[in-house]
């Protein structure tokens, strides 16, 4: 049994249903908006993820908002790190800084390819991948050394999470990939958006053997265009059941644009209720970038 360093980990292991949310650092020099969003979410979630150059768009370094949220808002952060933009030296140095600043939760991900981003001419790095990043974090936490075995002064206290896609086809491949990381030593799994309860159930069944807490990704949509983007274009592919699509389209037709989001809040809450009632999911991770104000509503409706 590993030591528990964070509230998030404590709650994930407690059997209590956990809510987490996500915010973007943004292409900005302004931290106030981030603090405001954090304050709005504080009483609803255990932790807030800060994304690392999401969609390969150059944002403020997520370590800063991750720290500021903990310091000024008083809610734990999950510092996301991708392997796309920095080599192992830069990642080790960021992790040391994160440890020094009291960050306790890290999400290790590969990162979308640079061609999707706002500087598509950039050189993709990928010196590490999400698995070798987990390997690095374990070395830092468990052995107090970096990748090459150089000793680190002071303790490194991180819980490391990974991302997974329950919608993946073939799913077996996704499960094998998770198995590889479980062997390295991960603390939690956070999934890509799930709209289909059966997709969540099958995934949870498949990963049960690993005995790792799973946060299922919940993504409300605010337009039909966004719904279609998930289905057709989102990296990894997302399944949205036909009847759910119809409900959203009907809301749009009957009550106009704004009704889509209202309907989506209702659907997200239903999904969470179903997860709480019928699965062993440790909680949900709600992603509503740019319209975070719906997160408290979804949580209220679901509990």
């Amino acid at each position: 049994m590993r030591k528990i360093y964070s509230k998030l980990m404590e709650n994930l292991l407690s059997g209590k249903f956990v809510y987490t949310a996500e915010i973007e650092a943004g292409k900005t020099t302004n931290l106030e908006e981030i603090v405001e969003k954090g304050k709005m979410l504080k009483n609803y979630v255990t932790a807030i993820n800060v994304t690392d150059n999401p969609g390969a768009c150059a944002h403020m370094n997520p370590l800063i908002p991750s720290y500021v949220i903990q310091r000024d808002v008083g809610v734990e952060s999950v510092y996301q790190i991708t392997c796309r933009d920095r080599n192992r030296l830069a990642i080790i140095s960021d992790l040391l800084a994160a440890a020094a600043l009291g960050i306790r939760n890290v999400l290790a991900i590969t990162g979308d390819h640079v061609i999707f981003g706002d500087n598509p001419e950039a050189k993709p790095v990928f010196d590490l991948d999400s698995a070798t990043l987990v390997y690095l974090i374990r070395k830092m936490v468990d052995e107090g050394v970096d990748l090459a075995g150089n000793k680190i002064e002071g303790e490194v206290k991180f819980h490391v999470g990974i991302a997974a896609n329950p919608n993946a086809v073939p799913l077996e491949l996704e499960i094998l990939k998770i198995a590889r990381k479980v062997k390295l030593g991960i603390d939690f799994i956070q999934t890509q958006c799930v709209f289909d309860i059966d997709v969540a159930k099958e995934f949870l069944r498949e990963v049960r053997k690993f005995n790792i807490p799973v946060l299922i990704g919940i993504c409300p949509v605010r337009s039909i265009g966004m719904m279609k983007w998930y289905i057709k274009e989102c990296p990894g592919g997302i399944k949205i059941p036909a009847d759910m699509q119809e409900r959203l389209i009907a809301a749009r037709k009957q009550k106009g644009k704004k009704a889509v989001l209202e309907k989506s809040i209702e659907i997200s809450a239903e999904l969470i209720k179903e997860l709480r009632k019928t699965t062993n999911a440790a909680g949900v991770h709600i992603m509503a970038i740019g319209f975070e104000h719906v997160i408290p509503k979804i949580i209220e409706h679901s509990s």
Partner: protein
Amino acid sequence: MIVLKQKPLDWILEAARSYDNILIVGCNGCSGIYQVGGEKQVKNLKMVLEMALKIRFGKNINVETCTLLRQCDRDLVASSLRPLVKRIKENGAIISLACGAGVQTVSNVFPKVVVIPGCDTLFVGMRTKELGEFNELCRACGECILFETGGICPLTRCAKGLLNGPCGGMREGKCEVDPTRDCAWALIYERLKAQGRLDLFLKFRPPRDHRVSASPRVWRGE
């Protein structure tokens, strides 16, 4: 094979127009096999060069040609080209239709002669379709793992070069970067499954030692 493509004719003309004597050197290795810089292409380029320089710039030039078995063979380049290089001594240049290694071998053997690359070197790959589609297969990483990955190189064929793939962008076996392209890790999964070696898919590969493939690489034999 090394896959290459000929540079645009206008580019070659611009580079060659100030010389009076040109020696076009083809290569029957990769370049010849892929019909980019073999004997036939050398002859064609000679004809086009003479014609175009005359029509566009009113210039008559002397064009010699030679196609080598392999242009990356230093001894072969030295012995075959020496007499021809003498013939282009007066304001002359060589156009090489080989890969970058061929161009540099020629330049290394005849350091005083200007060598114009007539091709762009693309990658190490294979022709996968009859109508000339080529795919990159090997990045010459210096540490071959193909035995463990079902004969499919993830370092080269995964858009992110992941050794522990696939990434989260894999979509029904296709790559997030180009949905018309197969995800290398999905291919590896299928291949290993077919070979009854799926246990290898679970193998974790630690971070690569980049010193193995840090340029410029030198091999001194063992």
